[in-house]
């Protein structure tokens, strides 16, 4: 019987790691926000900016990569617990090395998923609209819009998965595969959430895609779609709205709400189901209310019009407002230790954080619509087919997640090696020694 310690990979790593600020507050916070913003801007210029190098903000091509990078980060950290990287490496490797290696892998995986799974496999052997080359064969569809339509279909999968994948961890608590080791647990959750994403995709976005082509592909998708009367549009943006709300609410529950109020439920499966469907209920409340709020602010939407008054844009803008809320919520959790933490009352903590982050979201909203066209090269104004604040905001969130999940908040913080890491390092050293002396037993954990 082996006496080697059971490899945990990154299970519990984020909760158990001890991050110590290198300098007194608020220096680490300031330094990290400057570093993350600089990284954001540099990478934005290289990859996305319409004035920059690669100019992927077309917008859907860049949006597609942005969305899938987010999903890869979530899969690697939340679903696979950093597997196959061993705990000792996570705890001892330099943060920059970890950032480069893990981000590199996430990019390689996203290319494999987009180019290999969607464009090649599904696009060539199942549904033409996943492959730009297949779409370009259609009469009137230019190469540009073939790429855009294809990217839109693929990124919608990511949008749905970015709600369902973390939901299975945050709400369903990985059940019923919680006690499985990696990679069994990760693969199982990946398959179930991908399966659910596929169902949601076909019920929310497939009709939207079917309407894109003239004449409507009415024998392959239900057109006009079932939401037309309620949503006042045939556009799938109606669904993007509530799906984005779900995505953001999952992370609000996980971070600034400390999983309240659902954690008060003691029965495991009741709590899990209440959290899963509670997130959807809260998201739908935001979805409906924020649409109404726009009607109050700008005037009632008018079906068929464009820009600020178009119902389809108003639904999309609900998602955009929500994503503005996510950014300060994550920054508060990652760099401000989820302030305030000293208040005994969880209600007070949750209310204060909610108010602080809503104000933060309003500030980001104002900054974005006043300066993004100058700073990021995006479209000027609120509503436009090329105006997608979700792209830079999620791009920024991706950098935040890389810094927090992969780089242990480097450079503002440093990771204090845990006793387990020390023991594991010692065990590795001793195991190496054992290879030279096969008669020596491996150290017990």
């Amino acid at each position, binding site marked *: 019987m082996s006496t080697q310690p059971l490899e945990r990979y990154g299970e519990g790593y984020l909760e158990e790691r001890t991050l110590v600020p290198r300098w007194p507050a608020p220096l680490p916070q300031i330094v990290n926000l400057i570093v993350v913003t600089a990284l954001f801007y540099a990478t934005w210029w290289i990859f996305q900016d*319409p*004035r920059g190098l690669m*100019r992927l*903000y*077309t917008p859907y*091509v860049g949006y597609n990569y942005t969305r899938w990078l987010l999903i890869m980060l979530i899969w690697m950290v939340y679903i696979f617990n950093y597997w196959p990287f061993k705990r000792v490496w996570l705890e001892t490797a330099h943060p920059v090395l970890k950032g480069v290696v893990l981000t590199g892998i996430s990019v390689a995986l996203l290319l494999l998923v987009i180019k290999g799974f969607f464009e090649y496999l599904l696009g060539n052997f199942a549904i033409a609209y996943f492959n730009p080359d297949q779409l370009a064969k259609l009469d*009137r*569809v*230019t*190469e*540009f*819009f073939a*790429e*855009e339509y294809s990217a839109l279909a693929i990124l919608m999968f990511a949008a749905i998965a970015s709600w369902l994948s973390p939901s299975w961890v945050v709400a369903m608590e990985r059940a019923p595969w919680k006690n499985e080791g990696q990679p069994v647990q990760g693969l199982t959750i990946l398959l179930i959430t991908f399966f659910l994403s596929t169902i949601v995709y076909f019920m929310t976005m497939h009709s*939207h895609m079917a*309407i*894109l*082509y*003239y004449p409507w592909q009415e024998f392959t998708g239900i057109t006009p779609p079932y939401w037309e009367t309620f949503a006042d*549009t*045939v*556009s*799938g*943006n109606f669904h993007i709205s509530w799906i984005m709300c779900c995505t953001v609410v999952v992370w609000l529950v996980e971070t600034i709400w400390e999983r*309240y*109020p659902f954690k*008060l439920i003691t029965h495991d499966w009741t709590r899990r189901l209440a959290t899963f469907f*509670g997130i959807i209920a*809260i998201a*739908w*409340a*935001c*979805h*409906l*209310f924020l*649409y*109404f709020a726009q*009607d109050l602010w700008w*005037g009632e939407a*008018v*079906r*068929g*019009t*464009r*820009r600020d*008054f*178009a*119902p*389809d844009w108003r639904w999309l803008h609900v998602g955009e407002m929500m994503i503005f809320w996510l950014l300060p919520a994550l920054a508060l959790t990652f760099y401000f230790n989820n302030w305030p933490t000293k208040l005994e009352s*969880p*209600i007070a903590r949750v209310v204060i954080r909610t108010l602080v982050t809503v104000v933060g979201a309003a500030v980001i909203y104002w900054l974005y619509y006043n300066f993004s066209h100058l700073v990021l090269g*995006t*479209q*000027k*104004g609120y*509503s*436009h*087919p*090329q*105006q997608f604040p979700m792209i830079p905001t999620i791009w920024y969130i991706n950098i935040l997640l890389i810094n927090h999940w992969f780089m242990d908040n480097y450079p503002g913080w440093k990771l204090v090696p845990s006793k387990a890491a020390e023991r594991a390092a010692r065990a590795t050293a001793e195991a190496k020694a054992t290879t030279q002396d096969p008669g020596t037993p491996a150290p017990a954990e």
Partner: protein
Amino acid sequence: MSTNKKTETGTPLASRRAFFRGTAAGAAIGLLGMMAGYSHSSLRDKHFPRAQTARKDIGLVRGVKVTNISETSWFENGTLMGDIRGAGGLLVNQYTYNWAPFSTKGGKLASGSYEDGIRPIKSLIPGNLEKAWDYQMENAVHPENAGGFAALVEIETMEGETKRILLDSGWSYDWMDKAFQREGIDRMLANHEIDMLVLSHEHFDHFWGLPVTYKYDPTIETHIPEGFYKEGLQYIADSGHRGKLVTHAAGLHQIMPGVASYTFPVPIICRVYGEQSLYVNVAGAGLVSITGCCHQGIIQFAETALKEVAFEKFHGLYGGLHISPFDDWDPKYDDLVYALKEYGFEKVGCNHCTGEVTARKFVAAGYPVVRGSARNGSKTDVYLGNGDTIEFRAA
């Protein structure tokens, strides 16, 4: 550690806390639910009273006739979109494409600028457009794909006079000059028979052919919407304009009795901002909407009229309606096709950036689309094509 301490009254502390937490959580979720329910109940309607706003009386005209000088802004969608894609997408600054007439020597896609592009032709415009365009044919990116949009709007006033507005000036110097000569615009300009040039917006296909207008009448009063970038303003000067330049801020501006322009501060692709369109109030017929590209959306334009202009009913539409200019599609365009019938337009002449798919959907939906002759470069008869006319007046 036990958390089940008791208070002085004997109530378990943990259960009391749990009760308050549960109550607070329930209240918060209930509040959210109420917000959501209220948002989509009939109660919301009281927030949107149907109050009559003060609608401006812009006066009346007897009739209006529109001659389509050119609606063919470019000849191949694939070529145009290939350039846009190669340059980095729809938000790239139009002056950097190295498209004609702002090409540098041996111009490469997306590496130009206004300053570098105007230099070789500055001394040639507006007097020697042939040479200026020859230079573009040798150096620009796909100069053969450039056409342009322009229309002549002839107003018959209530007094029986004819007032003329040139709406936009196209793109290619060569294409537009020939189109002007074909429709007699060159002579009208030279004789000062056209009262003003109204530039709908700064886009290449409506604006970059400006020297063709100024070649024949450099003093013509020129109206632009607020939002032109510094390159666009400089181009007006560099094109040899010596007349009055009027900039319309966002909102309604009467430009003659019965005719008003409305400027919409809308963002537009290729780094353009703001567009103006025309309302013409025809006695006994109703309001006619005349647009260059209508980036604000035709329903937005109609809704704005309902709020701000006094008129009897909607009558006609002419112009690019900017729905599927590249024959791209989006489900929201179908929302437009559905919703437009609510406004009761009686005569529709559409072309240019309306998109052929849209025009066909209009016909299929039963809209009174006036068909064209599909000549002079126009590709389809569902468009009111180059050289075709449409007239709006009481029956």
